[in-house]
């Protein structure tokens, strides 16, 4: 086991606490860079979605995970980013300009949402963000001169340095990856700056933060703005990846998916946003795979246990019918959320930490290390 001796504050806030980090993340980055040459085009496309969802996840993590302000309206921020890109593109604005403009505009909108949200807490904030998302969705559907209403908008391919960047090509993947990596590094730097510390202080106790001299209102608005801007950047990439956007893509369902990303990944670390995005995006191909292959596998198992051919075929049909039933995906989603909340509240990254600690401390690992404290006493109404 490695012991890190910290002698001053600089040691404590280092980006890479020890050299092992550089090697592992360098290796990961190298693998991600050669991925286009290894993976099929379908998996590459999924990987691009992982990057986009992870970027949104990081944005949401700043707001929900680190500042403690729950938001179920991030689909609206994504929509604003996507629509800004689509609108400016019509006037031949170059990509870097509208990319930045989309982020900026979304950030401003985020700050505007942040102001009313200052007075709200907990459940009231959740409903306020949901209301905001509904209103944005309705505006997108009705403001036809700009958004083309429910007909949606086509998004052309990116023109970068005189070349067009195909949405399926490796260059687009590198672009998304670059945005993700820059966002993560930027967020890490933010979190070790006074601003980030203030965010975490507000999350842990607003009153305590205020009595330490933190301007709670200012930092909450900042958190909203930063989170929204990052989501806006992701929105531009999202629009380009789909090449077509319409209001019904940005519903409450999408906001819930973003929350699922950080919930499943683990809400206390940026690793969680990435792991959650991988989980959420990859669950679709996985379910399709199960749907196609499970019936055969189960029938095979039944056959080995002595079921006749006819019986096995019958079982195969039954399982196939069940697997292709409408809405099975929703049920599985629901079960996954509930199971994670009940049994893995720290998310995938928490599980990873537990496994790591198990091997580091072997054979002295104690289950109670990660036990959460129940707080029956505290009524959130009086907080």
């Amino acid at each position, binding site marked *: 086991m490695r012991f890190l001796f910290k002698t001053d504050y600089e040691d404590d806030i280092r980006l890479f606490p020890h050299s092992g980090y550089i090697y592992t993340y360098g290796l990961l980055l190298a693998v991600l860079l050669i991925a286009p040459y290894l993976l099929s085009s379908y998996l590459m496309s999924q990987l691009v979605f992982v990057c986009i969802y992870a970027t949104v996840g990081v944005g949401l993590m700043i707001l929900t995970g680190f500042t403690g302000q729950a938001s179920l309206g991030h689909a609206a921020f994504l929509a604003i980013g996507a629509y800004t890109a689509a609108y400016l593109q019509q006037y031949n604005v170059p990509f870097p300009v509208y990319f930045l403009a989309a982020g900026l505009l979304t950030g401003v909108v985020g700050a505007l949402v942040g102001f009313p949200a200052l007075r709200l807490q907990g459940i009231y904030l959740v409903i306020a963000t949901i209301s905001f998302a509904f209103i944005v969705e309705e505006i997108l559907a009705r403001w036809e001169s700009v958004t083309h209403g429910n007909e949606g908008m086509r998004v052309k391919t990116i023109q970068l340095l005189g070349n067009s960047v195909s949405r399926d090509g490796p260059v687009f993947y590198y672009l998304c990856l670059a945005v993700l990596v820059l966002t993560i590094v930027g967020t890490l730097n933010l979190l070790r700056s006074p601003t980030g510390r203030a965010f975490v202080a507000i999350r842990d106790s607003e009153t305590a933060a205020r009595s330490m001299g933190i301007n709670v209102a200012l930092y909450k608005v900042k958190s909203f703005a930063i989170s929204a801007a990052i989501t806006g950047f992701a929105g531009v990439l999202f629009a380009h990846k789909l090449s077509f956007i319409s209001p019904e893509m940005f519903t409450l369902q999408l906001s819930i998916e973003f929350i699922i990303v950080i919930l499943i990944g683990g809400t206390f670390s940026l690793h969680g946003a990435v792991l959650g995005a991988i989980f959420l995006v990859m669950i679709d191909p996985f379910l399709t795979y199960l749907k196609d292959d499970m019936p055969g596998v189960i029938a095979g198992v039944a056959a080995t246990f002595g079921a006749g051919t006819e019986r096995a075929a019958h079982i195969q049909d039954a399982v196939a019918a069940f697997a292709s039933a409408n809405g099975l995906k929703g049920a599985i989603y629901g079960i996954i959320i509930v199971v994670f909340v009940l049994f893995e*509240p720290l998310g995938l990254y928490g599980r990873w930490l537990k496994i790591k600690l198990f091997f580091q401390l072997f054979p002295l690992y104690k289950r109670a290390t990660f036990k959460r404290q129940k707080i029956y*006493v505290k*009524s959130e109404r009086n907080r």
Partner: protein
Amino acid sequence: MLDFVQQLVSGIALGCVYGLIALGFVLVYKATEVVNFAQGDLMMLGGFFAFTFIGLLGLNYWIGFAGAVICMALFGMLAERVVVRPILGYPQFSIIMATIGLGYFLRSVTGMIWGTDDFKIETPFSQGVLRIGSLVLAYDKLSVIAATIILCALLYLFFNRTTLGTAMRASSENMLAAYYMGIPVKRVVSIVWAISAAVATCAGVLLAPITFIHSNVGLVLGLKAFPAAVLGGFGSIPGAVVGGVLIGVIESMAGFYLPQGWKDVAPYIVLLAVLLLKPEGLFGLHVRKKV
């Protein structure tokens, strides 16, 4: 003027439905400080139970209604036992997510069992109208209003006059202290979930003639009922109904007098405005912060 009254009444009837669902939200919140995002889906499930008893098995309307209420009360207890109890006492956000997950699950499973079509329940109130002068009021809407008033009054009395109601309020204030005072907190929570599922079922069955029952009705109406509960100030029973009626009337008026598209957003705009002025809702308690 007649149009206005007509719109007002249909808005109130619609609002009462929102109010009934919001009552479920408020009940659970009052007793456990948990926001149940699956409330609308419980309502939907209750409607489907009633549809099965009345429409498919051909039982008498009132027997089927009672059967659905009892089944859903048991189901509410089951849901509480499986999903909520293990995380009771953890931060609110985890419980919100768990109930969102429960809602997903209920919607899909209902869709898989009963199909995704619209269903209708034959009720004694389906036909017939009450005429006052030239004002026409349908019985099904009046039945909703009447039921809401009765349920609201009963629940209000229950919470403020009975021992069990007091125990529920106590356990929401401070579970640990309530437990020390000899209140069986777990059973109290279980009972409150049963009651809220039963109230949701009433809403579902009364709603069936107005909007048909389908597997997504819970999501749609739940998202309207939730602002209603917030508008009234989460945790106030009359507030939930008043909030529901306000939302219903605003929606109905906006649909009639304003251009298309306002109908769906108007309730949310009003909600945001109210939250800006009174962050704790219209009837909410303002409590000083403690460190």
